[in-house]
């Protein structure tokens, strides 16, 4: 199997060393070098063409996000996945980076588990990417969604508890064809309106219920949920 080359851009030697060790623990990853400055990083990216860059935002001669911008802007540069590492009080940087589209964002101090998770995600995606040629970001996004939604169907997603879901399912099963608004469901079950909306949307997205928009009274539309015969039991 190919080794995945990783460049570590980090000005603190100790932290860089730690990253490097974490990488070595996974057989697939190969830390090809440590760049301590932006200048060094530029050179090493050109020479080694790494697959992943662990990019610390704080560098002595600039910021990681600027380097990332350069990488995006420079068409001649080797396209590479960037994992941006920032201090926890630099969320604004992350906000900017999100718009640019980093592979992942890590907050300092980087925990061992979290970095492992990132690397594993890369491996999964990399495998999937091998399957299709020239995946675009949009398709990658969809790929992500497929994974997420697959997971949803296997087990209940976070925020959806089986007890509450069962309560709601029961209410609808007893009232087939009856149109429920959030208010009505709240009266029936005693859950909060916010929670009710979450479950109802979950159910309608998964075919358990049908959601319909009613424009009955002028200016006061409503969204109703109804269980019909063709919905999943």
């Amino acid at each position, binding site marked *: 199997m190919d080794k995945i080359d990783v460049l570590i851009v980090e000005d603190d030697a100790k932290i860089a060393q730690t990253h490097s060790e974490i990488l070595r623990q996974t057989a697939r990853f190969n830390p090809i070098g440590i760049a301590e400055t932006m200048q060094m990083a530029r050179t090493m990216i050109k020479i080694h063409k790494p697959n992943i860059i662990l990019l610390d935002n704080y560098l002595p001669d600039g910021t990681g996000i600027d380097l990332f911008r350069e990488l995006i802007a420079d068409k001649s540069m080797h396209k590479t996945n960037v994992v941006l590492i920032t201090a*926890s009080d630099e*969320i*604004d940087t*992350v*906000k*900017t980076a*999100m*718009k*640019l*589209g980093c592979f*992942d*964002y*890590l*907050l*300092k*101090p980087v*925990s061992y588990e*979290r970095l492992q998770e990132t690397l594993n995600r890369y491996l999964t995606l990399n495998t999937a990417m091998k399957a299709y040629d020239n995946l675009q970001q*949009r398709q990658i*996004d*969809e790929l*992500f*969604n497929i994974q*997420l939604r697959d997971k949803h169907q296997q087990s209940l*997603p*976070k*925020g*959806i508890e089986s007890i509450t879901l069962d309560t709601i399912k029961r209410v609808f099963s007893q009232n087939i064809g009856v149109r429920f608004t*959030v*208010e009505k469901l*709240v009266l029936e079950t005693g859950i*909060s*309106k*916010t929670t009710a*909306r*979450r479950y109802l*949307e*979950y159910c*309608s*997205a*998964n075919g358990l219920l049908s*959601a319909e*928009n009613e*424009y009955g009274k002028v*200016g*006061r*539309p*409503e*969204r109703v949920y109804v269980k019909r015969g063709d919905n999943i039991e």
Partner: protein
Amino acid sequence: MYSSSSKLTFRLKIFLLLFGLVILQMSVMVWHFDSTLYKSIKHQVGTRALIQAKEIASGPALVEQIQNNDLSTLQASIDRLSKISDASFIVIGDKNGIRLAHPVKERIGLPMEGGDNAGALENGESYTSLREGSLGYGIRGKSPIYDNNHNIIGVVSVGYLLNRFDQWIEVYMTPLLIEILSVFILTLFAAWGFSRHIQNKMNNMEPEEIALALNLQKSILSSVYEGLIAIDRRGYFLNINHSARQLLGIEQDITYLKSRNIIEFVENSEIFFRDPLADNIKDEMFLFKEQYLIANRVAIFKQKELIGWVISFREKSDIEALTNELSQVQQHTDTLRVLRHEFSNRLATISGLIQMQRFDEVQQLISQENTSKQKLLDFIHQQIHLPQVAGLLLGKSLRAKELNISLILDPTCQLSPLNSLLNETELCAIMGNLIDNAFDAIQRSREGKAIVNVLITDAGEDLVIEVTDNGPGIAPDLIDDIWTKGVTNKADNQNHGIGLYLVHRYVTHANGFVIVDNAEPQGCIFSVFIPNNCKGK
């Protein structure tokens, strides 16, 4: 201020110019009149002198007296004639130019002076001449005297001295000079009054000052970031600056606009012409082409009479950005103080734990704060696949932390690229406004813990957004009105500004709808539903 090289004020210059011009004209006129008068008098007097000279020369008595050399009789008859005539002198000379009769007796027998006898004595001509004689400078009529055989035997010279002229000219000129003097005085007053009038029209400013003011006005207009428009009472443009043109999308320049009315360019011109017309309007919002502008109106008066208004405006977001920035500086300072305090506490705890060799707890403590943020980051990154929306949610989460509000993203949040009439920016505007609105609502009543719940999901066919706050909620009678543009009057509708109006607009544009509901036990819920299954988009 302006150059001190010209000490004369503009008014004085105008005055001197007008006055000088009139004086010059009058001088030319008087000179011309004077010289014409002089010429005409000279001609008349000359003719008179000549005729008299001819009459006297043709008298047979005179011829006889000369032939007989009867000087005393001659002198007597000439004296008699002199008394009748108004001439200054009558002189008779013989054929050699020797005086036979003269007003001054002593000069009889001496040659005539002036040297102008030749024409009469030698050629027998009659003429006038202007010469200096023994009696002074004068005009003379000369005529030869013939005997019966037609021989020239002498000359008659009738003369008028010039000092006589002056008397006549004086007689003619006096009324004229009086008239001229009165015209002169009138001109003085008129020039003074006119220059004052001009100066008043120019607001008592010198031309240099006016030029300066004009340049100043131009540069002020172009340098301010605000849009500025001046209109007259009917709404016609008086002036407009670059920013205003940009904000309102007007491309024509002011020379064209001067004949145009503001209502041709601004559909919502209510703020321009609101009663009472003379009142100033401060910091008011108005909608223009889907952007909100904050406008001020100041009335322009000209001596208590309203002549128009100046309207200044700028984008609402500009002002908001500024106020936000200011309030954030304050907040940053506070946050820093709190952080420093927390930090030293935490260091003390860590050092204590290390001394007690409870290393696992140290590890836990260090990663505690961090993991919650990392989790938020991971959650947004993994669930929200629209970078702008992800950034917005992240930003709002941080803002919430600063405001001490807990912003809870519903665990079922998820968002993929849109498949709707709505674009990402509009979605951001909707979310941002709803969340800001929730923050505002909560901050108005601080009771207990402030919580804002946000749900955004495109799992089903519709895009669903729900923002819930536990603020004071909305009075039932207001619920129907919050979407309408109740924004122009900020004071009594502070809670629902233009944000909600925009939300409503965007949502309706995308064929969706918004509903608002009260949450239990308190607060309100905004729910947005937008079709997200457009084919081919």
